[in-house]
């Protein structure tokens, strides 16, 4: 709201570039606080081993979160992430079980993910079904389909060295984390340096104006959902590497973590505003909270309580920081 704003006028002129990143700075402070607190109270939290764990867990949320950032910046939402990951991991496991070569199985999964994502995009862009509904449909249908196809049992396949390698480490870092960082670079680049990326921001900021500037709004919408499906498929590959089986019940509730990470990262649910760096820090926040709480060893139910409180507190701090810097919601 417009009322009762203003305060630090001179500061703005002094440090415009720094204050433009108030959001990210606030998140870095939050992550730092979490590290200090958990470092003190959670045994083994600061060990190299655990940092590797954090990265690996982060990859599960992160890869999907990059795409979700684009989706939300475009003014949409994709809640089908969890079931999508599970479904595709199951399909790939079946393909491997039937002795298809690994590249074929993985490629099949990637294509399927993109196609499913795109189908939600088409529902949104062409048939104007709200994206919440389109992806809610996928959410329900894909989880059901995966469970039905597998009878809720894990699908195992012959041992596969490449998959084991994907589930393992490279130079001390989890392969999945490396994939996450590479994709992060790609998304930062795409969102800042390509016509597609900027069009996503334009569509989310004002779809009418974007259309009148000749941007193909329909295509942009379909593509962001296709990318979201593709990233879910990549997450499914990482999961397959880690678990060695396809599980229909896996990744349950992942969509909540992914959306929370994006929102904690400062991306606005009303579209048009958001940054990949913010999402990276959001992913880190969410992952560190989960990890630190488990290591601290408190009751897993209390963990949910603490997690809920910290997420709200993080966003609250962030909003306050943004307000001080003079940017308004």
């Amino acid at each position, binding site marked *: *709201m*417009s*009322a*009762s*704003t*203003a*305060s*630090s*006028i001179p500061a*703005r*002129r002094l440090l415009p570039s720094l204050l433009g990143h108030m959001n990210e700075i606030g998140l870095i402070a939050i992550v730092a606080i979490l590290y200090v607190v958990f470092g003190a109270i959670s045994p083994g939290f600061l060990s190299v081993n655990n940092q590797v764990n954090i990265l690996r867990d982060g990859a599960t949320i992160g890869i999907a979160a990059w795409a979700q950032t684009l989706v939300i910046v475009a003014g949409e939402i994709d809640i089908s992430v969890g079931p999508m990951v599970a479904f595709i991991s199951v399909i790939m496991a079946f393909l491997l079980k039937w002795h298809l070569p690994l590249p074929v199985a993985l490629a099949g999964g990637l294509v399927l993910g993109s196609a499913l994502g795109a189908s939600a995009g088409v529902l949104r862009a062409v048939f104007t079904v709200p994206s919440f509904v389109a992806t809610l449909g996928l959410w329900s249908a894909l989880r059901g389909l995966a469970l039905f196809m597998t009878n809720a049992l894990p699908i195992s396949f012959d041992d596969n060295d490449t998959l084991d390698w994907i589930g393992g480490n490279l130079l001390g870092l989890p392969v999945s984390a490396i994939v996450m960082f590479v994709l992060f670079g790609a998304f930062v680049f795409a969102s*800042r*340096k*390509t*016509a597609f990326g*900027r*069009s996503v*921001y*334009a569509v989310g*900021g*004002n779809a*009418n*104006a*974007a*259309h*009148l*500037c*000749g*941007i*193909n709004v329909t295509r942009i919408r379909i593509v962001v959902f296709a990318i979201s499906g593709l990233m879910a498929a990549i997450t499914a590959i990482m999961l397959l590497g880690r678990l060695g089986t396809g599980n229909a019940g896996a990744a349950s509730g992942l969509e909540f973590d992914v959306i929370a990470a994006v929102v904690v990262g400062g991306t606005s649910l009303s579209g*048009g*505003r958001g940054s990949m760096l913010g999402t990276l820090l959001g992913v880190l926040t969410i992952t560190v909270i989960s990890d630190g709480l488990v290591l601290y060893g408190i009751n897993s139910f209390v963990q949910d309580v603490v997690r809920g409180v910290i997420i709200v507190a993080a966003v609250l701090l962030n909003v306050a920081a943004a307000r001080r810097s*003079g940017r308004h919601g």
Partner: protein
Amino acid sequence: MSGHQGPVAELRAATRTYPGVVALDRVDFSVMPGEVRAILGKNGAGKSTLIRLLTGAETPDSGDVLLDGRPFVESGLRRTREAARRGLRAVYQELSLVPDMSIAENMFLGDWPRRSGMLDHHGMAEQSAAAMRRLGLTLDPRQLASTLSPASRQMVEIARAFLGSPRLVILDEPTSSLAAAEVDQVCEAVRNAAADRVAILYVSHRMNEIRRLADSATVMRDGRVASTLPVAGAKTEDIVQMMLGGAEQTRAPHRSRIGKTVLSVRGIASPPKLAGIDLDLHEGEVLGIAGLLGSGRTELLEIIMGLRAPTAGEIHVGTEKIQKPGYKAMMRRGFGYTPESRKENGIVPLLGVDENTVLTDFGRVQRRGILSAPAIELATRAVVERLHVKTARMQTPIATLSGGNQQKVVIGRWIHAQSRILLMDEPTRGVDVEAKIQIYDIIRALAAEGRAILFVSSEIEELDQVCDRVLVLRDGIMAEEHVAPAIDAEQLLAACIG
């Protein structure tokens, strides 16, 4: 009514700052019952801020706000309601209707009449219809606001301001999207209210309206009151000079050379508004289209751009007959379109000036498929400098610019796209005197380069300043043609009314 004999509303040494701007700087201001006061000033001079302090929509950082000699009792969010209770009505510059509500409900927004505890929808509809009739409007009060044209929305808001028995009515650019006939209705309503000792504050960039209406004028510059003076004695040039603070005014340059036909439209029909439109547009020509509110000018532009399908007629671009109309295809043929509603369809508010400029053609600022920051900077700078856009940096979010500067960027994006034919729908709406003249200059300069421009405006006076030719759209056809230099505002107005 209070027995207070002094000013209806008063500011004393009021200061209001926004991050980075002092919007109002120790302003003293007062208005007496029955007075019609114009508030003048460039975009960003602080006019709307002054108004928002009076209506309680915002609180001053320091200083006092008095209504009928008494300060506000309430603070914060409850102030607007108190102001309304004390007889203050306002038409804000930004659209203040709720799109998915009926006209009647919008008329009584926040203060719906009740009968035995329930909202009185019937009474609301009747009172709304009566209020609209006073402004010559015949809309169904149950119609949703979202289905109204921008002009009708503005009329509804004005009707809302005169509901009940106000003490002070504030109109912030009430006529920015109205055509001449509606402006007359508004003027009449203002005069009637003033005769009933209602005080009126009237913000407008249209000098001739101010001359017709106002008793006195307050000229604002950079957040301060430059002067308050009676309108009758003051010369327009002096007032403009005061607004600009001594800066030079430029005049529209000469007509350019007219070349070959680039666009011809034959028999375009789209019931119930357009019955068969013919027009030809030539290289180097600025062709104005005049018409009353709702005469179908916007619709015509939308049809030409392929945004809307006509029921009959054909469009030729150069020698080519358009078979499959489509917006993107028209863009490729060198067409550019600046829409009527800048906020809803023009700008992407959160993106910078730079990106709002290059949005029409990323191709020109890419190097091997990658957006190049220097190229964007260069392209934007070219547009910004050429059109005199006032912005701190190229990356400044466009929403923070004044309306006139936003409009220049919206025009500039088609220069970036190197469009040859520009369709402009009300390009000077809500733009201050200085920026208006700059936009006229821009339009003339573009024409001088051989571009063709279709210029739709409801402000009759500006048509003769920019256009080589003006067509009058009336009863769904191009009823008359006026060719420069024989374009006369009064004749045009008469032609519009028919």
